[in-house]
Each structure stands twice: as C-alpha cells, then as structure tokens.
C-alpha cells in the first residue's frame, strides 16, 4: 500500500509547498532577448559596426504562488501583462530564466486548440494524433474515442479530411479532444470563446465536470464574467508582476475598477487595452497636466517621440552616446539625444541623412518600413494584387506594407467597393503607434 506521507512543507523562496500542491511557482523571472539579427552574417556585420545585436525585457519577474490540487485559478491582466507567458511556463513550452516552476501530475494545455491538427488527415486520425500529443496512451484514446466524437457532434464526418471541415466543426473536434485528456492539471487559454452559444455552454459544463472530479484548472480569459463564475481564485498580473492574489471576484473587481492611467483614454475607448499596456510596460508616459496625465492619442507622433517609445519598447537598454552626434540637428544636449542615438545605432533610424528632423511627423509607410526592418526584414511572398488600393505594386514601401498586412499587424481601412486602403502618407498618431507596437509584440512575443 502506498503510504501518504505526513504533509510536509518546504519553501523554495516564499512559496509553501505541501503534498497537495499541484503547481508551485517561485521567484520566476522570464526575460525575452530581442535579437536584431537573424544570420551569422548579420551578427558579424552588426558587431563590426558596433551596433547592438540584442536587448532584453522582462515579461515576468518575481512571480510567486502555489496552486493546490483541485483549485481553479484565473490569471488576469491586460494584454501584455505576462499571463500567457506564465501559462506557457507552467506547461513547459517556455522555461523560466530564474526561479523554479514545479508541477505534480499530468498536465495538458489548451493553449491553442488544434495546434497539432493536420488538414490532410481525417478527423479520426487527428483525434488520435492530438490525444497522443497531449500525452494520452493508445488504450486511453481507444477507450475515450467514442466520447470525444459524440461530444464534438460530428460523427458523420469523422472519416472526412479535416480540411473539408467548417471552422466551427474543426474547433469543436479540437476542443473535444482537449477536454477529454486524462490530466491532473488543465491549462486553458481563451478557449471558451469557440463555437456557438450551445456549444460554449456544453464546454463550460464539461469543464465543471472536470472541476468536480478534482482537476486543477488554470484559466486565462478576457471574459471576466465567465472567469469569476468558474474560478475560486484570481491572480492579477500587471507588467509581469503579481499585484493581486485572492478571490476571483475581487481580482476581477480590481481589474475592472482600475482607473484609467490617462484621462483622455477612458476604458470605453477602442484602444484602451493597448494604451494601458503601453503605460503599464513603461512605454508611454504621456504628459503631466497638473495632477493628471494625458496620452493625447490623436496627436501626431514626432521622430524624437518615436525613438523614445521604441527605446522603451526594447527595455530601455543603457546606451552610450557617441562623442560626435549622428545627426547635425540632434546635438548631445537634445533632451532625447540618448534615445535618438540608440535609434540610429540599431539601424532603425533613416540611414545616410545628415539631419533627422526630430520634430518631424512620421507617416504610416515610413513606420511600416521601420517595423519591417526591426523584424529583420522577414521574407514573404508578395501578392499578385496589392492588398491596399493606395499602395500599388510600384510603391517604394510595398514590401514592408504587404508584410505588415500579412502579419495582421495592420488591417487598414475599409474603402468604397469592398477595397482596403492603408493611407501610407497619413501621419502616424500616438495611439496608432502604440497599437502597432502592441500587435507587433503579439505577433512575435519575444521581440
């Protein structure tokens, strides 16, 4: 007979671990290194020219908590607060740079449903493949196969290739596999937004069943109502740090109630999340007006301000200003000289010009080119027809703008007759800059 030892406690850092602890996160830090080069040649060239090859930012730091077996915990926070990174750390996809993460029992992540699905395989083959990816054995899958198919409600099409499925059918099957895995700890990221209303309810019921049999749940979702109903406990993250850990209801209240950082960007504004993210990450400071702060979202951004935002976006790396200024109109005494010199050294600033024009506005095409350079000018196929009517095939920034469209960072505007326009010559606003940077980081979180 296996004997259960007396509940013993040990404490890595500040976290109490007992025999019933399912997840222990102690003093965890996750730093992303932002590489500016993508081949050995680029690295060597950058080194020879004395340019920075990389910089870092902390997505998470000093995170401590323990989750008991059978608990349901919601990770809350605005976009960019580090909650998805934390989920990936718990699942083992990413590893912490400092601190420890320990888990007990089998774990499966619904981090993205259907990540392991192959379009050319039938539904049946995909069920087996994905259940095996999530850690199930052949016997377990055989035993649960009928339940999985019944839950997904696509019995008739189970031997059809998945590429012929509608997106709803695909998600139902993928979700069904995930919630039928035999695990002790289930990680859920934004999963409950799939499918239609009745299916969502069914998913929630299934998750409650799992809760009832003692599965530990860690949930990330933007649906705060659902989260506070489903979870007992909420951990609120801001800027990669735990700012609240307690009852889920209170965590949600605290998140909802947090007063906007800027008086001119209220919670009702479309890009509130993105601006708050920029404020929380220390990228946008705004302007002090008396005892309040303004962001001035629709104001056009200047090159100097852009250099400052990007420098902070990159983690405000320390940088030595060269003895002779790179630009004649940005002397060492310029209030943003450090940021602008950094901007020049990373190769992001316009090259080969004597004057930068620090107070000049930045048009959208110029910014697209800058982001494209920053991403290392990734190769992508140009479409035969331009995506935007106002960016024809002979536009000087065609490659950069088409790349931006292909990544989803820019969707452009609806123009007449179902066409889209990018408005390349329109000056970039402060709000648009932050939105672009946010999407850019979501597109490639380690940058």
């Amino acid at each position, binding site marked *: 007979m296996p004997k259960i030892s007396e509940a013993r406690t040990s404490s890595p850092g500040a976290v109490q671990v007992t025999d019933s602890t399912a997840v222990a996160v102690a003093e965890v830090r996750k730093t992303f290194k932002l590489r500016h080069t993508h081949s050995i040649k680029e690295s060597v060239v950058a080194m020879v020219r004395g340019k920075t090859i990389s910089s870092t930012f902390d997505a998470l730091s000093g995170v401590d908590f323990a989750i008991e077996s059978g608990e349901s915990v919601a990770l809350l926070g605005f976009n960019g607060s580090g909650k998805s990174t934390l989920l990936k*750390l718990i*699942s083992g996809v990413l590893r912490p740079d400092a601190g420890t993460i320990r888990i007990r029992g089998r774990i499966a992540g619904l981090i993205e449903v259907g990540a392991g699905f192959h379009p050319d*395989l039938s539904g049946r083959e995909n069920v087996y493949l994905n259940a*095996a990816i999530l850690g199930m054995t052949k016997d377990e899958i055989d035993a649960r196969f009928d339940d999985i198919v019944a839950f997904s409600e696509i019995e008739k099409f189970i031997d059809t290739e998945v590429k012929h499925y509608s997106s709803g059918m695909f998600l139902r099957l993928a979700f069904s596999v995930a919630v039928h895995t035999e695990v002790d700890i289930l990680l859920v990221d934004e999963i409950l937004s799939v499918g239609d209303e009745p299916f969502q309810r069914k998913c929630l019921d299934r998750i409650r069943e799992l809760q009832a049999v*003692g599965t530990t749940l860690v949930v990330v979702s933007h649906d705060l109502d659902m989260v506070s109903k489903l979870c007992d406990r909420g951990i609120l993250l801001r800027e990669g740090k735990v700012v609240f850990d307690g009852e889920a209801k209170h965590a949600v209240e605290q998140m909802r109630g947090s007063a906007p950082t800027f008086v001119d960007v209220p919670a009702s504004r479309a890009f509130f999340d993105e601006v708050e993210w920029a404020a929380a990450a220390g990228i946008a400071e705004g302007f002090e007006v008396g005892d309040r702060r303004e962001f001035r979202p629709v104001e056009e951004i200047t090159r100097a301000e852009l250099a400052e935002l990007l420098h902070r976006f990159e983690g405000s790396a320390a940088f030595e200003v060269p003895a002779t200024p790179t630009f004649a109109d940005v002397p060492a005494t310029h209030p943003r000289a450090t940021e602008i010199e950094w901007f020049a050294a990373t190769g992001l600033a316009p090259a080969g010009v004597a004057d930068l024009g620090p107070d000049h506005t930045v048009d959208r095409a110029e910014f697209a080119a800058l982001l494209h350079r920053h991403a290392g000018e990734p190769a992508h196929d140009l479409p035969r027809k331009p995506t935007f009517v106002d960016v024809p095939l002979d536009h000087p920034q065609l490659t950069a703008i088409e790349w931006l469209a292909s990544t989803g960072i820019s969707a452009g505007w609806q123009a007449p007759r179902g066409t889209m326009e990018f408005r390349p010559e329109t000056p970039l606003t402060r709000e648009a800059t932050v939105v672009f940077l946010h999407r850019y980081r979501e597109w490639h979180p380690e940058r």
Partner: protein
Amino acid sequence: MPLRAGDPVPEMVDPGRGFGLVDVVRRRYLLQLLTRKDVQVRYRGSVLGWAWSFVKPAALFTVYFLALGVFLRLNDTIENYPIYLFSGLILVNFFSEAFINSTRSLVENGPLIKKIFMPRELFPVATIFVAIVNLLPQVVILLLVCVGVGWTPTVAQALGVLLAIAIIMIFALGLGMLFGAANVSYRDSQNFVELIVMVAPWASPVLYQWSMVKDVVPDWLFTLYQLNPVTSAVNLMHQGFWEPTTGSGTVAPHTWVYAGIGLLSSLIVLAAGQFVFHRLEGRFAQDL
C-alpha cells in the same frame, strides 16, 4: 486522473524538462503516429504519389550510370557496376534525406513546439523513420535484382547490411539533432547541411571504387576516408549485396573494423547531438 486520497503522491517535477531520447522511447506511440502522419501526407495531392520515391532514385541512378558507368567506362572495370552503384546510392540517399529532414524538422514543426510541450526529440527521430520507410522499397528492388543475377551471401554479409542501416540511422540522427538545434536560431545551418549532403556521395566509394582513392592519396588520407561512418556503411552494403554477386569483387580491407569504428563514432555523434540539443532546447519555443 486527478489525485485522490489513497493514491501515491507523485513527485513534483519541472515542466519542460525531459530525458531526451529516453522520452522518445516512452512516447513511442506518439512517435509512431507522427511518422505515419509524415508518410501519409508526404505525397498528398500528387498523381504519382509514393511512386515518386522510386522515380527519384531511378533518375539519379540512370544519370550516374550513363555518365560514370558508360561514358567513363566504370561499367567495364567494376564487375556488376549497376548493383555496385545502386547499393551504395540508396544508402547515401537515405543518409541525405534523413539528415536534411531531421535538420529541418524543428523549424517545420515550429507552430506545435511553440504551443504544446512534448519531447522535441520526437521530431528528428520521426524523420529518420520516414526515411527508412522510403528506403525499404528500394532495398527490396535491390534484393530482387541481386537474387536474379545469383546472390549467395554469407550470414555475416547479410547482417552487415542491417548494421549499415543502423550506422546511418544513428549518424544522421546525431547530426540532424546537432544541426537542427542550431537551425532554430540560425537558418544558415540547413544550408550548410545541404552542402554536406551534396559532397556525401563523392566522399565515399559510391560512384567509383575504393582502390581508385587508395592509388592516388597518401595512406593517412585514405585512413581518414575510411573513418567516415558513411564510407564504412557503404562498404557494408557492397559487402552484403554486390560482393556476393561477383566472382572477384572485393570491398576495402578491414570492413568490419571500420564498421565497428563507424558505429562507435556515430554513437559519439549522437551523444554530442543530444547534448547540444538539450542545451539549446530551452530556447526553441521562443526562437522559432
């Protein structure tokens, strides 16, 4: 199953830390499914389908046979040259395919690696098995031809063929893990691998005979040539298929000694590959 009272309490473990290739053995069912998936989808949407895996080596064989066998007259000096050529060629092709595909396997499975944790060694290992599936029909053809012209191998010669395949599997997997792990951060790696693979058929006695090398290079260089695990495996193939169909054909001396060394050095390469893979693995999900 969720923990219940009375169940033994499992130890707490680090998520994302595994035991390398040992985990691949533990997850062999998943390995089997991944291999089957690759085999199934490989020629999807093509009319010839798996016939392509015959067409490609057949074309290569024809070109080499015409150029080297007929025009350069190797067919006159090497007895049963077609069998000599084909038995070496399919092995080197196996090496090339296994090496290139295992090097690329991590980048190709990037979306999965970034989202779900599983032993990442599964991906290069699966490509090696896919390459085996590709190799086997070619071995069958070779076998039929050999039997047709009168094949009388000893047991040791026949077992040598299995050893040859094992050496290439281990060697290609070791190299694939090494270059594949590097490929995640620097795509230069896969271009470098293509270069190695281009040289591979010429760096072993596949198209010509070993004695032609021995006659012109100093002894130490010939020894070095023999130390290449691919060379030792090619010699085993010739010893298994070609030698028993000829009257006077002989493979390079000390075949078994070099085969032993080849196996040993392949295992060392595999250990090095696993070591580097393990060191770099922590960065895969964020660098892909």
